[in-house]
């Protein structure tokens, strides 16, 4: 079969056809070197770990729950989810193709030895502190001027040294949470979800699983059974969170799945901006990541959730990489509430992720800004759902997909206006850019309108980089790779503008890195 449309045709045979005779071996090797060098977060931290027994069973679930000393209701919640999960089938509708996952081949719990005892940052082993420092995330508060290094020159001049509180999750446990005390003075609860279960059980019980129920989908149900750690945030009524909050997820241990659970609640008229970053070492086997993120915004509250996802994407032959199956959903429960998702997706071998908004409160607003860059053999199927239930609800979707190498990048989105959503509005724009002739860009929008007074607009284009633009930049003496990065950054400007400044700088750098080696 020749290599043309359809997922089944993206197979190994197709690759062999593509590698023609006469291709300079040096060029191939140089590209390979570039790819490996590109991923600066691919190092492994050598530290003694505690594991749950390999595989998944009721015992694994009980083991995780016992390790965290959880109350009975939570153990029951997990076990119910596990039993249901056994009856479910892995979804196949996404445009991604990967070998069948053996769920018994993973560790569902991995934590640095003695991690439960870390009372303060001084007890966290130096290896872990070094790991985060190397990733640009200093965990000692004294060192934290800007949460992300490298942004200082531009961001600091623009703002007055903003600080970011960080929750650092290392495999299955949270190892440190900074600025907790200072946040507490403002009434903001910021801690790992394992701690919140003990310290604020009523809040956790009230909101956990109310946005993404344990029955939601195959991966969310798996997460409900085995979730390990994640972040819990509660911003009380009328409080504007005094600093940016962030969680940095690091997968380190071999053959480990990470199943974090994040729950953010913004009470009436509260505001919080939350950032999330993720990296993992370069390993030859695929690692599993199935997270659930739930956001709840009450009357007049606003949550801004930004993600820079840079999980190890696997090598250029598609070996290794993270399988990223994530359920993220925000519930605009209150009137005039707002939830804004911004994501920069450059990593993961497989991405299956649709951060969504349920616009339940009247006049609530949902936003989704996304840049997804795929390279090598990556496959991304990502997008959003905007469910308009309340009156005069508004949503905006800006999605930019960039495909390079032999990757596939799919935008999949749903805009649904229900019968009671009087005067709902949506604007969707999704653009795709193809770099090279071996990649694919796909757009799968669903638009369901049940209101005559709703106004829904969708437009999308697929183009390649304009040769004129490239020539213009090149003739100014800018190298080809840098020129492409420049043009692509222009193309995704709208999305980057929505990121908190520190992350925007970081994301620009990431984007440049991700596109190196794509041209020429």
């Amino acid at each position, binding site marked *: 079969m020749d290599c*043309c449309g359809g997922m089944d045709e993206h197979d190994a045979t197709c690759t062999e056809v593509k590698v023609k005779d006469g291709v300079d071996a040096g060029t191939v090797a140089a590209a390979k070197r570039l790819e490996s060098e590109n991923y600066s977060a691919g190092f492994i931290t050598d530290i003694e770990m505690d594991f749950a027994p390999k595989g998944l069973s009721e015992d694994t679930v009980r083991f995780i729950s016992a390790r965290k000393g959880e109350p009975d209701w939570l153990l029951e919640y997990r076990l119910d989810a596990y039993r249901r999960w056994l009856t479910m089938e892995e979804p196949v509708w996404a445009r991604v193709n990967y070998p069948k996952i053996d769920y018994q081949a993973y560790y569902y719990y991995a934590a640095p030895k003695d991690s439960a005892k870390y009372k303060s940052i001084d007890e966290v082993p130096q290896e872990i502190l070094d790991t985060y420092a190397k990733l640009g995330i200093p965990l000692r508060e004294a060192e934290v001027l800007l949460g992300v290094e490298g942004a200082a020159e531009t961001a600091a001049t623009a703002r007055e040294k903003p600080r970011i509180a960080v929750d650092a999750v290392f495999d299955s446990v949270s190892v440190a949470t900074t600025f907790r005390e200072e946040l507490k003075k403002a009434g903001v609860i910021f801690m790992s979800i394992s701690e919140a279960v003990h310290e604020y059980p009523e809040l956790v019980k009230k909101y956990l699983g109310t946005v993404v129920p344990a029955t939601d989908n195959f991966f969310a149900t798996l997460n409900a059974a085995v979730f390990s750690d994640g972040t819990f945030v509660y911003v009380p009524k009328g409080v504007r969170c005094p600093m940016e909050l962030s969680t940095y997820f690091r997968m380190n241990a071999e053959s480990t799945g990470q199943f974090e659970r994040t729950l953010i609640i913004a009470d009436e008229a509260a505001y919080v901006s939350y950032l999330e970053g993720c990296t993992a070492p370069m390993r030859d086997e695929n690692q599993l990541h199935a997270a659930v993120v739930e956001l709840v915004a009450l009357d007049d509250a606003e949550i801004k959730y930004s993600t820079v996802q840079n999980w190890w994407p696997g090598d250029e032959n598609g070996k290794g990489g993270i399988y990223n199956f994530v359920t993220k959903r925000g519930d605009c429960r209150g009137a005039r509430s707002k939830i804004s998702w911004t994501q920069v997706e450059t990593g993961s071998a497989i991405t299956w992720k649709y951060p969504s908004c349920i616009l339940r409160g009247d006049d609530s607003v949902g936003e989704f800004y996304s840049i997804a860059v795929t390279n090598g053999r990556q496959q991304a199927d990502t997008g959003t759902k905007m469910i308009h239930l309340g009156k005069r609800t508004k949503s905006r979707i800006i999605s930019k997909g960039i495909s390079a190498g032999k990757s596939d990048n799919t935008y999949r989105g749903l805009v649904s206006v229900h019968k009671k959503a009087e005067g709902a509005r949506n604007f969707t724009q999704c653009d795709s850019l193809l770099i090279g*002739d071996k*990649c694919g860009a796909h*757009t799968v929008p669903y638009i369901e309108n049940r209101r*005559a007074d*709703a106004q829904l607009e969708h437009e999308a284009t697929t183009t390649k980089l304009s040769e004129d633009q490239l020539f213009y930049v090149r003739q100014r003496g800018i190298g080809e790779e840098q020129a492409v990065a420049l043009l692509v950054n222009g193309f995704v400007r709208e999305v980057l503008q929505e990121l908190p400044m520190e992350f925007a700088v970081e994301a620009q750098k990431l984007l440049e890195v991700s596109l190196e080696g794509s041209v020429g």
Partner: protein
Amino acid sequence: MSTALRDILRNPTVAELELVARYAGLKVDARRERLFEAFALTGLPGRRDENWRWSDFKSAVTALDAPKTPPAHDPLARGGVATLRFSPSGFAAPSALPAGVRLVTREDVQAMGGAEDVPLGALAAALSGTVQVEVSAEAPVHLHMVFQGPGAIHAARIAFLLRPGTELHVSESHLGGAAFSAALIEFTLQAGARLNRTIYQRGGAGEVQAITALIEQDAGAESVQTVLAFGAKVSRIETRLVHRETGSKATLNAAYLAGKGFHADITTHVRHGAPACTTRQQTKGAVLDGGRGVFRGKFLVPRTSGQQTDASMQHNALLLEEGAEVFAKPELEILADDVQCAHGNTSGALDGTQLFYLRQRGIPLVQARAMLTEAHIAQALEGAGEHEDALRTEASRWLAP
């Protein structure tokens, strides 16, 4: 054999069992069996099938009794144009056909390409013989087809072959009369051939209709398709077009108007299987309270062969009253980098300012709404040539009865 096929169908409905019985009564034929099997793997498709999630034939096709609704009149009928008539009781053609047209009716079944993607097309092929029409005339040929008549099930199939450089103007009126009708119409356009296809569809509120077309185009071939659909209990007009050779062009326009209890589905799938082919697609819709409009469009641009594709897809729908529903999925699958592919989709109410402007000139609301809606859909009917006026008249009658 029918027992085995019944086993393929999962939890068959009464209607599906009737279809199996109908099939079992036909002459045994290996090709027929393959076609029916292609249908049986899906059965009557319903909301659990991704391609049919908004057009649920499984629920819609209930008892297969001949409906009482009198069939609609035929606005495309024209004196002097040879008319082919399809009804549940058979096929009739005039004895004299235009010069350069050869018609063959075959009782045995002919194979079709891609039957697995079009379960209702495969069903139509399995339950009927084939009418084959070859066009080799130098002058443009005009033909008219009517699908109409009382009955429980109406299955029909016709295949056209347009020889190089020929031109066919074909109009189709799908007027209903049967509880469930499935028609399969195939066109093969050889190099430089031109096709102008106009479709008028109007089913009864108790009828279910599936009209499937497969179009294949060789180098430099060109097709222009114009649809005016009023829907039925559930109706779907599906066009699957393949650009097989360089420089092929297609225009796929449609307008749908769905009133209370009517469901109109326009589905297209275009494969740019050769370099430098062009597709222009425009679908306009208007829906009243209790009606549902569905648009599904897909451009597939394969790697290498799809380079220099130039394609655009537009769907604009008006929800004229509360209670109307419009569902759309304008999809792109692109595996080649040197292409231009665009799609746009809008849905909403009529512009209030425009309505106000007309009303303050003393035009009543219903009429003002009709004028603006007619203007909205008019663009999609422009390609119908000699039939444009007839289609616009039907549309305005519906809008302001």
